[in-house]
Structure formats: C-alpha cells, structure tokens
C-alpha cells in the first residue's frame, strides 16, 4: 500500500505551511529516514523525512501554501504501485490553497525616460543552479566573477570557487618580526582544521583522566595471516592491510569489553550498542578520523573496502559529516608512518573512552623457551579514560588483544 505524505503539524499552530522543496524528483526512489521534503513556516525551514522507502509521487508542487493535513505526496512501495498512483486521480483531503506571489511594485503612470532606465542599479545575476551550488558550499558570492551573459554567475564559476577553497593554504609571510628575542620565520594562523585539532586535543586532555598502557605484541602469526590474505587479493577483491585487521580484531574485542566502547556524557556512562571504529588518517593539512560504522557486523573484506573508500574520500576532502561522526572507539596505526621501534602516547578522540595506537612491525630479539630468537614485534599504546574504567580493565583488554593477535585462529572461523 502506498504511504501518504501529509503536511505536518509542527506544534500548536494551525497555520498553513509553504511547500518549499521536494528533495527527490517525481518517480525517483526515496529511502526511509532520508529528507524527502522541506517546508517553511514563519521563518523556519523544516525537513521532513520519508517514513518508508519507495518511489515518490508528487501531488502538490513547490512554492504552494498548503493547510496542515493535506496529502502532498505519496510513496509507492514498488514501481508497479508507482505506475498505479501516477495514473490515479487521488482526491485531495483538502484543496491546496495557492498563495499568490506578492504583487510587483506598481509602475508609475508616466513611464520613466529610457535614459533613466539605463541607470537602473546593476543587480547581481546568478543562475538557479549556481545559486543552489553556492548555498551548498557556502561560497561568498561577492568574490565570484560571473562568466555568463551580462556578468551572470553560472555553475562553472561556483565549481571553480569550490576547487580553489579546497586548495587554499593560509600562511602569512611577515616582515622580520621579533617575538621575545626570537626572529619569526613565518606565521601560520590557527584556522580551519589546524585550529580544530588544537582545540580538540587540548580539550580532550583537560576533560578526561587519560592514562596509557604500553606493550609489545609478537606479530609472527599476524604477519603470516596477512601475507596469506594479500596473496588472495584478487579473490577477495581487496588488499587487506594491517589497519583492516586491527579494526576487525578491535570490533571483536569490544563486544567482549563493552565498557571500553562507551562515552561519559552528562555524568552518565553511555555504553554504546553500535561498534563504530574510527580510523585516524593523516592528511597534509592535519588529521581526520573517518568512521567504520557497525564494524562488528562487517566481515574483514567489508571492513577493508570501507576503510579504503573512507581514506580515499578523506584525501579528496569529500567526507560527509555522517562519515566523521558517531565513532565509539578509534584506531591509529602509526606504524604506517614508518620510523622503527618506538613508543608513543596517543590522545582519546572525545567523547570516546579509549584509543588504540599501534607502531611499526620490526624484527627484535626476544626470549622463547630460554632461547634468544628473532621475531617481528609491534609496539602498542592503549590510552583509556580512567573516569570510565580502571587500569585493570585496560590491562585485561590489551591482554586479550595480544592473545588474539598472537593466536589468531579464532579470527579465521
């Protein structure tokens, strides 16, 4: 059965609303939970989400003022149903009132002489597509030169501006400046991503009680496992990396240690149902943490493909807000950056309660059964929030992680 889309009541008021924009075209597929319609009342724009997935059939066009309760559209469950509703003349619950556009200002009886007309102020001209794009990317119109007829701003002008915005690097060269006895080489203003990272890191440390457990893991079995997976690259459809494996392992462990997958918010510890693992990704401008959602419900191959796609998008600056929010735990594989055997401290990504950092895998001399042997060793640094759980829990978590990585057969089942 097709589902009706009604003009909603947005509170106590019964005033009609203006149907401003359909977010999908006639007949297009819509997904449950996605915004399908925007309405406006007074000075409020309100998004309306689709209640079901299906195909949209529009009954009332954009720009009309519509009373509450009017059926403005229908979501058909199947294409066949769509064809049926498109043919049907559905009787509207209440006839939609069409609001007239405000009348044009009255033209004076005596027409102004042509010379005066020519002096009319130059208006800013912009195509509707360019306007929409400018709005999407928050482009300052006064900085754009229109290349369309009469200086009209067209889509290409905005697209160019969007590209430029991405490439922009702020760096002020200051004439020899001396600050407290030191000569300034260059001044980089703390803006954009750099400022955000600075604020976030500082706040993270001041808000939580962060301690770090550090250790080593014998990666002999993991190296073998990874080599075998890499040799199956074609069959799997993806090249498995150590980061993919760490996400996979962490997802399993977080199921067993739910307290590690939590957040302290408003004096309450929220233990999350979802296991959304962020993968810290270094960028030229700094750092970003795209999130693999529901990592525990994904296979290793799915994780690998997701991570690859997110990292690619991060490098291109194309991550959406949805892809960088909602994380419950973070992994930062610093070994990927090279540098040999070392230990680091890592900072929790608020409002999570823990972060796992891993170093490079290097051959080290270790003792096994009273003998000195060479094994591939990886250092780890697990920072946790002591307001949420204790060092004992942290130690147990990492003991399990170590155990799992040194004996990965449970992972392969």
């Amino acid at each position, binding site marked *: 059965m097709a589902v009706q889309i009604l003009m909603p009541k*947005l*509170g*106590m*008021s019964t005033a009609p609303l*203006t149907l*401003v*924009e359909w977010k999908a075209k006639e007949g297009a597929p819509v997904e449950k939970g996605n*915004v399908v319609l925007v309405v406006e*009342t*007074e*000075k*409020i*724009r*309100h*998004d309306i*989400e689709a209640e079901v997935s299906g195909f949209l059939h529009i009954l009332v066009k954009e720009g009309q003022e519509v009373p509450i309760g009017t059926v403005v559209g229908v979501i058909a469950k199947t294409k066949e149903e769509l064809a049926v509703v498109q043919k049907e003349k559905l009787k509207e619950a209440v006839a939609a009132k069409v609001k007239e556009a405000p009348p044009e200002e009255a033209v004076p009886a005596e027409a102004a002489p042509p010379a005066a007309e020519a002096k009319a*102020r*130059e*208006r*800013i*001209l*912009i195509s509707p597509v360019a*306007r*929409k794009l*400018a*709005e999407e990317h*928050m*482009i*300052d*119109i*006064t*900085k754009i030169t*229109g290349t369309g007829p009469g*200086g009209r701003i067209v889509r290409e002008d905005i697209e160019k501006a969007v590209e430029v915005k991405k490439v922009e690097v702020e760096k002020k060269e200051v004439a020899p400046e001396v600050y407290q006895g030191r000569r300034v080489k260059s001044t980089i203003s703390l803006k954009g*991503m750099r*400022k*955000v*990272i600075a*604020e*976030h890191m*500082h*706040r993270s440390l*001041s808000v939580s009680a962060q301690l770090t457990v550090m250790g080593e893991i014998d990666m002999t079995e993991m190296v073998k496992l990874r080599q075998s997976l890499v040799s199956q690259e074609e069959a799997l459809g993806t090249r498995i990396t150590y980061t993919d494996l760490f996400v996979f392992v962490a997802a399993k462990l977080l199921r067993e240690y739910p307290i590690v997958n939590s*957040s302290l*918010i*408003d004096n309450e510890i*929220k233990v999350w149902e979802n296991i959304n693992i962020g993968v810290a990704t270094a960028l030229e401008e*700094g*750092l*970003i*943490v795209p999130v693999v959602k529901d990592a525990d419900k994904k296979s290793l191959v799915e994780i690998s493909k997701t991570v690859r796609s997110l990292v690619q998008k991060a490098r291109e600056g194309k*991550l959406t*807000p*949805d892809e*960088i*929010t909602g*994380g419950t735990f973070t992994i930062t594989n610093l070994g990927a950056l090279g540098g040999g055997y070392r230990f680091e401290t890592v900072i929790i*990504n*608020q*409002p999570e309660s823990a972060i796992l950092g891993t170093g490079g895998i290097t051959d080290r001399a270790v003792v096994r059964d009273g003998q000195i042997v060479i094994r591939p060793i990886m250092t780890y640094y697990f920072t946790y929030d002591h307001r949420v759980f204790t060092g004992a829990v942290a130690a147990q978590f990492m003991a399990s992680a170590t155990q799992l990585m040194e004996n990965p057969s449970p992972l392969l089942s």
Partner: protein
Amino acid sequence: MLCTVYHLGLIAYSDAYHLQRQLLCQRVNNEITDTLLLLEHPPTITIGKSGKLENVLASQAQLAEAGVSLFFVDRGGDVTYHCPGQLVAYPIIDLRQRGRDVHQYLRELEEVIIRTLNDFSIDACRDRSHAGVWVKGREIAAIGLRVSKWVSMHGFALNVNTDLEQFSLINLCGFSDRKATSISALLSQDVSMEAVTEKLLAHFSEVFDLQMECGSGILMRSWV
C-alpha cells in the same frame, strides 16, 4: 538539562555554518548537549531560500569594495545583514525533547530577546505575521531558523551597537519600507556586548529551563 555555551568572537559566516552543521549532527546522535554559539560576523549579507536577490540593493562590485560578503543560506526568512556590533546567537537545540513544536521554539527565542531588552528599559514586541523582535515598528532582532531531524540551527541576530547605515544595502526581510534599529540607537549611547550577552544568557536559561555551562574553546571532531 545542560546547555554548553561557546563564545566564538568574530567568525566568518561560512565557518560558523560548517560548525553548526557538525554540531547539529552530533546533537541528533546525542553525542553532545544542547549548545549555544554566541558570536559576531564580519559584514555579511545572507539570503534565505525564499529570499530574492532584488532585495540586495548594491551591486556585486559595490559589496566587494565595501568588504561585504554575500551567502545564500538554507534557512527560513528573506534577506538580512550581519556585522560587528550585532550579537548573533545560534542555538543547536533538540526539539524532540521539547514537544517537537517549532512555533513554540520560535516564540521562546523571541521571548528571550524581549526580556533581555526589557533589562535595558526597551519595550519590544512581536509581530505575529512576521517573526523577529520590533521596537516602534523597527526591527531590532532578526530571526531565521532551520530544523533538521528536529534539531535547530541558525537563530537570531540582535543589533547592539550595529552600524545601521549599512542596512541600506538591503531591503530588510524583503520589505523596502522596513528599517532596523539597535540598542545603542534607542538609548542614544553605546552598550557593551558583554552586558547584553550576560543578560541574554540569563534569560535564555530561564526561558528554556537550561543550565548554561561555558565550553572551553570549540568542541568538535575533525571536520573538513
């Protein structure tokens, strides 16, 4: 219930917008508390979705020369103007917890402003046909909102020590006969932003029944 307040100082319109979108996402997911951003913008004209370019009275060249920016914005309302001396407030509030009544929310925002103005002996009122706050027929505070997944963004701009001459660049709210006013214009003396902010926060807390807490710096995850 808690509300975290951030004083952002002078911040470009586009930066504040991106920040709001980030915070809105986090509020929808219950990762953060209700949040209130307080700030000022450099000279900026913004045009809402239903706004018309005809209501911008200067040419692109004139605006560029005057150092005025222009953005199209996905908020309700027509054209408005922002500049230093104007207290801009962007509350990111979860309306799911407030009965999902956007009209009520709008009225409450107006109430906060009216009570604040009362503290400065200014008698302000609403115009039922036109959201905003008015004194003797002139607009002292403009309001424009967007509600997405029942969380609000954008908000209002209250003219404190605003240079009212600059409003001649636009037809305020799309009307050629509407004029703007400010606290300092009405009182014939400058008033500090701090004094107004203090009163505003107290009334915001009262009207929305929220405990205001100052956030240190900007809370957010990395954003592009």
